């Protein structure tokens, strides 16, 4: 079974005799592990707010929130897949296909509910296909999801001949315009994710599968089903993010979010989700998504060029990878 430490619960750990007095006094101020990502984000925000005009304004906080919400949903889905020991590179293509499907349905029916249902169905179906290929056909997650990413991206562009789909119902557009609605979706998804991961049988099976799939299998856990469900969750959350982004742009786009993949994986890993599987927490992902959004927003506000922003984000991603390696060594 999964060790408590790998699931994100800190143990008392090391020998106090070998620690210096300074280290012991520092430990007293140690932030609980589940809140470290949010704490790092708060420190970053404080630094940037103190040195950047307009950073702490209400309008800007709204901007950070609107940027962070879809990233949080995507990273949450990615976390479910990564905990199971997989990875989903097809999330951006899932978003694009969901986006155009929902937009076409809404244009034809005028129904927001029908459009959103279609988008979520597309997301879940793609998750099921990915999960089935990984779990039952035993294909490598990287190759499966890279293939579906390529196929679905092509399908989305081909289906609408590169055209964006306008004429979306005003009720749907409100989801993107009003931060409260999008935030509500994120809170519900976050709470549901937390309950499923920490309180449900599936959640415990997911951690066990990601930590050691062979051991989980020998213990009689339904490993393939656990994995399939993680990919379905990832697909559904990608579709939920597509709902918000499509509503915000008032357009169904066949290339929606095509450059977001590294941000998504970066936010998950930066938060503390281990690429080796078996480790993750909703609050970590929230911290990672907020950290990325605050960083992006602050560097934009400070007038840094596009290339410097890319360098900064690349540096942070490198740090996230180092953090993951360091955690793996020390856990």
């Amino acid at each position, binding site marked *: 079974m999964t060790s408590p430490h790998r699931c994100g619960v800190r143990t008392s750990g090391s020998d106090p005799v070998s620690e210096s007095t300074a280290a012991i006094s520092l430990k007293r101020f140690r932030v609980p592990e589940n809140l470290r990502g949010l704490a790092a984000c708060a420190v970053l925000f404080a630094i940037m707010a103190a040195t*950047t005009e307009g950073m702490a304004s209400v309008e800007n906080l709204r901007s950070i929130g*609107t940027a962070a919400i879809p990233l949080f949903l995507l990273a949450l889905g990615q976390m479910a897949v990564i905990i199971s020991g997989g990875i989903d590179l097809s999330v951006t293509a899932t978003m694009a296909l969901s986006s155009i499907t929902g937009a076409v349905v809404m244009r034809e029916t005028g129904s927001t509910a029908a459009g959103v249902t279609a988008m979520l169905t597309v997301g879940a179906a793609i998750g099921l296909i990915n999960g089935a290929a990984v779990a039952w056909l035993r294909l490598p997650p990287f190759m499966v999801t890279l293939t579906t990413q390529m196929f679905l991206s092509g399908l989305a*562009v081909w289906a609408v001949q590169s055209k*964006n789909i306008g004429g979306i119902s005003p009720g749907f557009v409100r989801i993107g315009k009003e931060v409260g609605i999008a935030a509500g979706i994120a809170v519900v998804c976050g709470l549901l994710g937390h309950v499923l991961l920490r309180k449900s049988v599936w959640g415990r099976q997911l951690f066990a599968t990601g930590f050691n799939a062979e051991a989980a299998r020998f213990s009689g856990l339904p490993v393939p089903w656990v994995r399939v469900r993680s990919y379905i969750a990832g697909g559904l959350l990608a579709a939920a993010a597509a709902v918000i982004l499509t509503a*915000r742009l008032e357009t169904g*786009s066949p290339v929606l979010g095509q450059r977001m993949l590294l941000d998504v994986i970066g936010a998950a890993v930066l938060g503390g989700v281990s690429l080796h599987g078996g480790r993750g927490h909703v609050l970590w992902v929230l911290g990672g998504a907020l950290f990325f959004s605050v960083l992006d927003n*602050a560097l*934009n506000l400070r007038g840094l060029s*596009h290339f410097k922003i890319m360098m900064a984000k690349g540096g942070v991603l490198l740090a996230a990878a180092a953090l993951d390696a360091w955690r793996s060594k020390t856990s």
Partner: protein
Amino acid sequence: MKPFLFCLLFPFLLTACKDSGSGKPKIGVAFETLQTEFWVAGFDAIKKECAAAGYEAVESVADGDANRQLEQVQNLITRKVDGIILVPKDAQTCLPMIKAANDAGIPISLFNRPAAQSEAKSVAVVADNFSLTKETVLYMIGEAKKTGQKHKAMVIMGDLGDMNAIGRRDGFEAAVKEAGAGVVEVVSRVPSEWNQEKAQAGVTNALQANADISFIFTSSDFLLPSIVSALKAAGKYHKAGEPGHVILGGFDGDATAWSMLKDGYLDATGVQDVYFEAKQCVQAIVDLKAGKTPPALIIDAGFVIHRGNMNDKSAQMWGANIRK
């Protein structure tokens, strides 16, 4: 904890090299991409025009992501810039950006790409893609007529979600139709989605399927290297006047086109007047701030450059200037 400290330290270090504010009023310049020479030349021209009008240009680049561009426009609004010059990814996704600027009372102009019809108010400065393409292709058809043979043609189209790409495709088709079926027969229409790799693969496939293609028009000059590569592989890359020369034309007027024109490989290209478009975009912001009402659509007529007029026209061709 050390990697976390690095996470925090790295952006903090970068903020130390923040672009220093000049104290001048600011115009936000939100580009969809800076990945081709045309956009870089446009960005440089806008910065120069901003400086000439007494403004500082504040850069943001969305790297092809419409949602990121929306966030960047919102950031510019938060910074309370005095105007926004937007280069949108496409005609639809820019509408929420224009509405956000409208709601904030910030004047906004669109460089080179227009928005779709809506209530959102902006000034778009765009090339007359249809007419300029038609004029360019008619010149190429004139060159084709001189050979006394019927030519099989290929057109490389852009991203058809982009109004400019549609205008250029339609201009090509109109010129071919006007010339009549006796001169040029279109046997291949290659979709590139403004992607060099897709263009190269499409042109290579088309040349394999129709080895006798002898007339090619590309909707953007930035795809010329892909076309040249495919033509060389097919043994069809020859100068004008040499046997087997493929009549080649483009649109934009970039440095590659200028170089190929001088060397005799390119027959003509429709040049967008980047300097005119940049000047008009900045002027529109200045006028809107002064309470004037510039037209919602300002047309850059552009011009066709070919070997017959290249010495006279090169000074106006932005691609010729950036090579000097």
